[in-house]
């Protein structure tokens, strides 16, 4: 009974497959591409279309505070050659670059301690403490820093108690970095912790077995193994800091302006949507460049050789 039914089913399925099989084999991935359609639609509607519109707007004109379709390159030349834009661009690059260096430099030893030095329970706890800030309000955390750093804030009150200060902690490069690191550090540490947890421990043992001291293992095994993760940490920190609006606004009072601040200012003063779009598009181009640089660096020497082959 069972044997018979199995045979029937088997031959039925064979028959069912016989006709369509060549077509399925010929167009490999009909089903996968069907499944991909929702993602493509999503990307088209919510990413590609606004992006194209953003680029189109850069060529439009504003006449008596009203946006009109046109095709002028005036917006581009005015923005790209304006000293304000150039200063803001350099400033934003320096700020985001500093955040990137600080984030990687601070996150690496922290992640190393969490991944390699803590026990399993302490490690889980540390990861939980890192995940919580990622999902809590960034704005709230910046307000908290204002209370800590302001001239009448907690830090200055404590310093005043021992006869120091008040120090101008809020409103400069220091407080800006504090704000940006609040945004980037938890993510940077998390990326590195997960990457370090994925390192093959036998590689570390093999290095020691082959004469590598504990201290040199970091340089010779851990950092080379983490190359893609370090590149990802750096690009993520840079992208977050580069486009951030909240920290420059609340921690420095917009002076000097970053590119995000400049976009808002441009829109506010005279509804210059096209010029704001020029800044926006320039930022996107720079982010794309930074991302590809990160990609290139993440592959490493041996990886690049493989890709070139």
């Amino acid at each position, binding site marked *: 009974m069972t044997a018979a039914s199995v045979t029937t089913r088997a031959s039925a399925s064979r028959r069912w497959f016989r006709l369509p099989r060549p077509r399925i084999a010929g167009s490999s991935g009909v089903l996968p591409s069907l499944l991909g359609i929702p993602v493509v639609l999503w990307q088209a509607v919510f990413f590609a279309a606004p992006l194209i519109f953003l680029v189109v707007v850069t060529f439009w004109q504003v006449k008596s505070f009203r946006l009109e379709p046109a095709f002028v390159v005036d917006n581009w030349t005015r923005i790209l050659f304006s000293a304000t834009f150039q200063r803001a661009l350099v400033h934003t690059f320096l700020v985001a670059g500093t955040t990137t260096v600080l984030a990687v430099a601070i996150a690496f030893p922290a992640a190393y301690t969490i991944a390699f030095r803590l026990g399993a329970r302490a490690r889980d706890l540390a990861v939980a403490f890192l995940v919580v800030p990622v999902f809590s309000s960034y704005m709230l955390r910046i307000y908290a820093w204002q209370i800590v750093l302001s001239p009448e804030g907690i830090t200055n009150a404590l310093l005043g108690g021992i006869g120091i200060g008040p120090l101008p902690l809020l409103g400069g490069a220091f407080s800006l970095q504090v704000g940006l690191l609040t945004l980037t550090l938890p993510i940077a540490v998390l990326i590195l912790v997960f990457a370090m947890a994925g390192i*093959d421990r036998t590689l570390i*043992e093999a*290095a020691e077995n082959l004469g590598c001291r504990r201290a040199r293992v970091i340089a010779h095994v851990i950092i080379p193994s983490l190359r893609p993760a370090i590149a990802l940490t750096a690009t993520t920190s840079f992208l977050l800091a580069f486009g951030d609006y909240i920290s420059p606004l609340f921690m420095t009072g917009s002076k000097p302006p970053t590119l995000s601040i400049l976009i808002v200012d441009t829109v506010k003063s005279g509804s210059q949507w096209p010029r704001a779009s020029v800044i926006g598009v320039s930022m996107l181009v720079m982010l794309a460049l930074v991302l590809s640089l990160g990609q290139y660096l993440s592959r490493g020497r041996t990886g690049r050789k493989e890709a070139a082959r």
Partner: protein
Amino acid sequence: MKTPFIALDQLDKRYADHHAVKSVDLDIEAGEFIALMGPSGCGKSTTLRLIAGLDEPTGGEIRIGGDSMRGVPAFQRNTPMVWQSLALFPFLTVAENVAFPLRMQKVGTAERRRRALEWLDRLGLAGMAERNVAQLSGGQRQRVAIARALVTEPSVLLLDEPLSALDAHLRVRMQTELSRLHRELGITFVYVTHAQSEAFALADRIVIMSEGSIQQVGRPQDVYRAPANAFVAEFMGMNNLVRGEVRGERDGLLDIAGALGEFRVPSATPRPEGSSGDFVIAADRIALAADGEGLAGTVLGLEFVGSTQTVFVEIEGGAEFRVQKQQHEIEALDLVPGRKVRLSWNPQHAWLLPQPAQAH
């Protein structure tokens, strides 16, 4: 007396939840090829890791070349290991992998490249130097791992199941290669494996371990023919263990009676009546006949193992025997499952298990 090159003295390793190595004593001579064998979890790999300094013993001592290794970190021991997973550095090229130990010794760039290329050449990997590790086949990667371990010309090489990831064909080729390297270099090889064929093919001596303790140390043929206890006899696989009790002695042979019947077994030392008479008879020492004298049994099945076949026979009384036979003998007797057979052997070929040590 000659001092051993590697001496394990009451070596002990306890983890929080289990006792991995229990008071192991072992002397390994310089230039010897020794294999540590046993089922998984028997402590063979832990012993190797203790020699390499990757784990700290919780008791006892290891001496290499007469020097105590107590407090000597792994990176100062020069006891390179070939890992089961190979542990090649994926971010380095083949040549850089091989040169890695030299780089750690601060050998100059040109010199370490020359020596790395020399070893690659020696292992048949000339022309692979600039490749990525990922671009190599399993066998080539294995050779890179061996070259990397030998490039500093150490006096000992540790191997932790190095061939288990390879397919059967490659495994045999690498065995030959390892054998050749051992002969040419004349250094000590300590080889951990669970594969009997590898240990038999390669090792001068084998060490059988179980549950953290050494069960027997000896030349492969001696351990095979004269197992020290029931565990070793069963681990060796091709032995048939017969349980029994000593009943007396006649003409230099012991009379032994057990559930399967009465047997005669030689013994080097006298044994009192009533003591254990467990003995083993090797699978290739048993004669099969259609009828006549001997243990009566029924053929259960056959297993083809190359030049010979293993015949599984169920003995009346419950035991299962393995008998090794040539193909033509099997055909002559028409051994098919269900066939009744008689098993017999020369009593001189039976091996009486030494009496279990008195419980402390």
